[in-house]
């Protein structure tokens, strides 16, 4: 096992797959010579050359569209959209073209294509560079959606996304790029659509994603000392969604909390709560509560941004009060 940062693990995942499969190509803005603005693709140009690792103009529609056309005709492209906020500038390509073309042609084309993007807040970049937008993708049929929380998963889930025969949106939380963790040596591939139980408790189940996972774990630690024993589940993949694992854990504890970085309305938390409300209502012992950023654009200044996003303190406090 090597200790890697999250950003190194991303580069390692791409490198592993590009080595294995000559049809994997990687394009994006400033990704080649510069190694990406988050330095998550450093070294790839040197390893794989300028044909397979290419800088593009600032043309998000053309970038995603080009990847789609290439995926339809024999390549397995990886695209970087620098910040997930910029997905909006190519949303037609993603939501209307990439997501729907296989279905509309009744399976005549496959779209093995990965769109990687830096997601989320915590960098004091303001509302146009800080959004957590995994829910935009989740709401569109035809897209798979993945968001890892550790360096090992960054590598393993990215590798799985690249091997997947369908389009995958891969969200890399900016606030995680610097964290370090053990990453298995040699080929490492995870399985999409599998949640991971990180902690088993008796009293409630806290479900979290990406940067909210370490916070949920820290909160569970504090709650323990208050006599509340919480299960913590890392969702990892929103589509496919591992409802089997999630519902099993909810049933065991009878209480569900979700921790979402995104703004309040229509997030993945609402989806999971709604599934539980329909499918395990009788196992519930009390209200299900979502912990989210308020429904506002994210402010830039450090104290405001820190307070807006779900903090460990707010998770602890919310769970404590709801469990009273």
């Amino acid at each position: 096992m090597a200790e890697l940062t999250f950003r190194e693990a991303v580069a390692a995942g791409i490198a592993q797959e590009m080595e294995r499969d000559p049809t994997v190509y990687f394009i994006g803005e400033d990704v080649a010579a510069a190694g990406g603005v988050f330095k998550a693709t450093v070294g790839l140009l040197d390893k794989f050359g300028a044909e397979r690792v290419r800088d593009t103009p600032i043309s998000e529609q053309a970038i995603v569209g080009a990847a789609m056309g290439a995926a339809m005709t024999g390549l397995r492209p990886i695209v970087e959209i620098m910040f997930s906020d910029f997905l909006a500038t190519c949303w037609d390509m993603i939501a209307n073209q990439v997501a729907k073309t296989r279905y509309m042609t009744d399976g005549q084309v496959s779209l093995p294509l990965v769109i990687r993007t830096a997601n989320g807040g915590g960098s004091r970049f303001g509302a146009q560079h800080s959004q957590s937008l995994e829910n935009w993708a989740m709401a569109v049929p035809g897209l798979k959606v993945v968001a890892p929380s550790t360096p090992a998963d960054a590598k393993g889930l990215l590798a799985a996304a690249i091997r997947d025969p369908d389009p995958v949106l891969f969200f890399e939380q900016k606030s995680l790029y610097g964290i370090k963790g053990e990453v298995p040596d040699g080929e490492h591939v995870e399985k999409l659509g599998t949640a991971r139980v990180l902690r088993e408790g008796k009293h409630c189940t806290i479900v979290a994603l990406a940067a909210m996972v370490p916070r949920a774990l820290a909160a569970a630690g504090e709650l323990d000392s208050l006599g509340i024993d919480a299960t913590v589940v890392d969702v990892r993949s929103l589509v496919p969604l591992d409802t089997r694992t999630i519902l099993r854990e909810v049933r065991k504890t009878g209480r569900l909390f979700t921790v979402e970085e995104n703004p309040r309305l229509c997030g993945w938390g609402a989806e999971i709560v709604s599934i539980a409300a329909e499918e395990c209502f009788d196992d519930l012992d009390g209200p299900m509560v979502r912990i989210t950023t308020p429904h506002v654009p994210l402010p830039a200044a450090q104290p405001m941004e820190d307070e807006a996003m779900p903090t460990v303190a707010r998770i602890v406090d919310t769970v404590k009060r709801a469990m009273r």
Partner: protein
Amino acid sequence: MGPDDKTRLKLYQLMVELRDFEQRAYDVFMENLIKGTSHLALGQEAIAAGFAVAMRKDDYTFCTYRGHGHTLARGASMAAAMGELLGRSNGMLHGKGGSMHLTDVTRGAMGSYAIVGAHMPIAAGAAWSAQVRKSGQVAVCFFGDGTTNIGAFHETLNLAVVWKLPVVFVCENNRYMEYTPIESVTAVEHPAADRAAAYGLEAILVDGNDADVMYETASRTIARARSGEGPSLVEALTYRHGGHSRGDPASYRPKEEVREWMSRDPIKQYRERLASGGIDEAMLRKIDDDARQKVDLATEEARNAPPARIEDIESQVWSDGGSAWRN
């Protein structure tokens, strides 16, 4: 000079087939058999035929909602096309796509896209793939005059030139974006040709109603792409004989304009040229008759096919054939 007789007959035959198919599509629509919409390319046949005849079998076509002709021109099944318009289970997409999305990947017809401009970068992407796979394939992308004003047009042209992609962009300037005259919403007279220089490209403005010209233009630009010299942007002047889509009587168009363009019908013109060039009238008549018969058969087959299957609703979202988003 121009193309040889065999090629000319092929061009003529294709145009007649596309014309007859579109006219039949109009008729079945009037019978209320087409439930959605349909956008006919009546009058624009020379462009589709010119390019299709010049293309290699494994080249890629990308077109729009006005794409029946482009798809059929690559050899896709007429019965499957008509079936798709009628929402039948024999449809090319088994009812999932409808008139605006005809696709036959086995023939290089890589799809009809219904959002203006969206297919342009996708076509560039297929060309990129051909380039790096060194397959020698070329992508041809058809779109309208109105499409030149959308952002995807600009992003695509720039990228295609910078990457020297083997792709030919063909603007079918039929003078209208839906009901609005193109000149009232465009900063230059020739929406594509006047912009070629913005991408370092030659301005190519041609008569889109002349099948020989279109064949020659297609051959030249495809050869350029195939030889690694990069993309071209062609503007072909043409005219829709009918409205924008089903039910549009196109009454916003000046009568004089319509009369003038109808007199320049690409098929009538070409038939006369062939006849005066020594092609036997009987031969032309046989092409006409065969086309009509082909369309009759295809229509019959589609009419008799059962409706699209409800059990297909949840299939083919994913490569495993299904649509499961959870376990």
